[in-house]
C-alpha cells in the first residue's frame, strides 16, 4: 500500500503489530477494552498492569510514546466530565486539599478516568498501527453490516472533498469582506452550512448515479481474501488474554 498518504493517526512501520491482519487487532482491542471495563474499580493495581500491557504492545510496535501521547489528548474533553464528578456526587464526603469531596464521586471519577484512558490508549495504538482502509476491511471481515462499512468508507473518501468545498466557500466569504466576529455573523455561517449540506446531498445523488451505472445493486464487492492464520490469532489474543488474567485477579483479591 502507498505510504505517505495515510491518515494522520497512522504511523507507517513494519513491526509485528503492523503486520497483523486488521480484524485480529480490532477483535483484540475490543476484547481488551471489555475486560478493562469489567474490572472492579477498587482493584487499582490492575489498571497499572493494563497500562504496562499496552506499553509493551507500544514498544513492540515501535510507535514512539510522543506520537501516542499527543493523540491521546482527544480524551481531554471527557476528562473534564470525570473531574466534575467528585463535586456533584452524593454520599459520604472526604477532605482532600481542604475541599470536601464526595467519596463515591471520587471513585466514579477514577473509574471513568482509568478505564477511559486505557480504552483511548488501546484505540490510538490500533489506529497508529493499522491503516484506515485496513480497519474498514477488518470490520468487514468481522461481519460488521456492509451498509455501515460502506457509509464509513464514503466518509473517508469524501471527507477531504467536502473539507475542500468548505475551504473554497470560506475563501469566497473572506474575499468579499466577511469576517465572523460575533453572534451577528452566525446567520451567514448557518447559511453556508446549509448550502454545504445541500451540495453534499446532491453529490451523494450523483455518486449513487455513477454507482448504479456501473452495476451497483446494494453491495460493494471486495476482492478481499485476507485470512488470519492460527498463529496470528494467538499472537493478537495475547493482549486480551493477559488482560483477562489481570481482571480475574482483580476480582479474586477484592
Amino acid at each position, binding site marked *: 500500500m502507498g505510504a505517505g498518504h495515510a491518515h494522520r493517526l497512522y504511523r507507517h512501520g513494519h513491526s509485528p503489530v503492523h503486520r497483523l491482519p486488521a480484524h485480529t487487532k480490532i477483535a483484540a482491542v475490543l476484547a481488551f477494552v471489555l475486560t478493562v471495563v469489567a474490572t472492579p474499580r477498587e482493584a487499582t493495581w490492575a489498571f497499572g498492569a493494563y497500562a504496562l500491557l499496552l506499553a509493551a504492545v507500544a514498544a513492540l510496535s515501535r510507535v514512539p510514546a510522543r506520537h501516542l501521547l499527543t493523540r491521546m489528548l482527544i480524551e481531554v474533553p471527557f476528562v473534564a466530565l470525570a473531574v466534575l464528578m467528585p463535586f456533584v456526587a452524593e454520599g459520604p464526603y472526604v477532605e482532600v486539599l481542604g475541599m470536601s469531596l464526595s467519596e463515591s464521586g471520587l471513585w466514579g471519577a477514577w473509574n471513568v478516568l482509568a478505564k477511559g484512558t486505557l480504552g483511548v490508549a488501546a484505540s490510538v495504538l490500533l489506529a497508529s498501527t493499522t491503516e484506515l482502509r485496513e480497519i474498514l476491511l477488518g470490520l468487514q471481515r468481522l461481519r460488521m453490516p456492509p451498509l455501515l462499512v460502506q457509509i464509513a468508507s464514503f466518509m473517508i473518501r469524501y471527507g477531504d472533498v467536502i473539507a475542500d468545498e468548505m475551504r473554497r466557500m470560506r475563501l469566497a466569504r473572506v474575499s468579499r469582506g466577511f469576517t465572523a466576529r460575533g453572534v451577528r455573523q452566525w446567520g451567514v455561517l448557518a447559511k453556508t452550512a446549509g448550502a454545504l449540506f445541500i451540495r453534499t446531498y446532491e453529490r451523494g445523488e*450523483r455518486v449513487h*448515479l455513477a454507482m448504479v*451505472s*456501473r452495476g451497483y445493486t446494494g453491495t*460493494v*464487492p471486495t476482492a478481499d481474501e485476507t485470512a488470519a492464520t492460527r498463529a496470528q490469532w494467538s499472537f493478537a489474543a495475547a493482549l486480551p488474554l493477559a488482560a483477562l488474567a489481570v481482571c480475574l485477579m482483580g476480582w479474586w483479591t477484592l
Partner: protein
Amino acid sequence: MVDAVTATDPRDEPPNEPVNDPRTDPRGEPAPPPSLDVSGLAYAYPDGHQALFGVDLTVARGERVALLGPNGAGKTTLVLHLNGILTGGAGSVTVAGLRVDPSDRAALAEVRRRVGIVFQDPDDQLFMPTVREDVAFGPANTGLRGAELAARVHEALALVGMEEYADRPPHHLSFGQRRRVAVATVLAMRPEILVLDEPSSNLDPASRRELAGILRSLDVTVLMVTHDLPYALELCPRSVVLGEGVIAADGPTRDLLCDEALMRAHRLELPFGFDPRSVPPPHA
C-alpha cells in the same frame, strides 16, 4: 439552413476502422448490430417538464460521435436513458442488439456493462478509497473475482496510462489524472460504447491533449457529449446536434461546424479565431 440529417448519412458508410474485437463479438458475425440504436425516444420528467421529443440516433460499432447542443437541450436526459437509469417514456433504446428493458434485471445489468458512462465530475465517479478498488468496482459487480479481476484492472489502467497510481486514493491525483482513472473505471467493464459527459471540461491543455490521445487509441464506440467544438472536430468524424429534445442535425462534424445558420440556431459557438476549415479532417 442545410438539413444535415438528409444531407449525409454516415450510417451508409462502413465504420471508420475495421473492427475485429473478439471481446465484444466472439462469433465474428459479418454485420454486428449497431452499438447504439435509439428510436422515437421521448421523455417527460415527473414534474411535467418534457426533455425529449422523439430522438432517433444510430451509432455503428467503432464510430466516434459527438453529441452537441446547448444547455437544457436534453443531452443529459438522453445519456441517462442509454443505460436505463431513466426509463418510462416512449420509444426504445437498443445497445448492440439488447433492448433496454427496466423490468428485466439481468438484461439491465448487461446493458450497464455495455454502456460505460463517464460522468463530468470525476469526484462523483471515483468513490472508492483507492484507484484499484474503484476500477475493480464495475467488473466485480459483473461477478469477476481474483486474478481475473486483477488482470482486468491492470488492463484498464494501462489503457489510460495510470498503472502506477493503482494504490493511491483518488483525491491525491490531479484533475486530469482523475478524469483518466474515471475513463478506466468504465473501460474495465469492456463496454460496447463509451459515453463521455464533457470529457474536456476543467482540463488544462496538456491533459486535454493526453485524453484525446487515449480516446483515439481505444478500440471502442464513443459517444461524446460536449460543448468543446474543436475537441469534437478533433476526435469525432461525425456529430449530431440535439436541440429542443430532437436530433436537429446529423452529419460530418466539419460540415455541421461550418453551417453558420445551424450553429446559430442552437447556440453553438466556435472559440474566437477558430476556423474548422483550417484544420485537417479528423481521422478515426
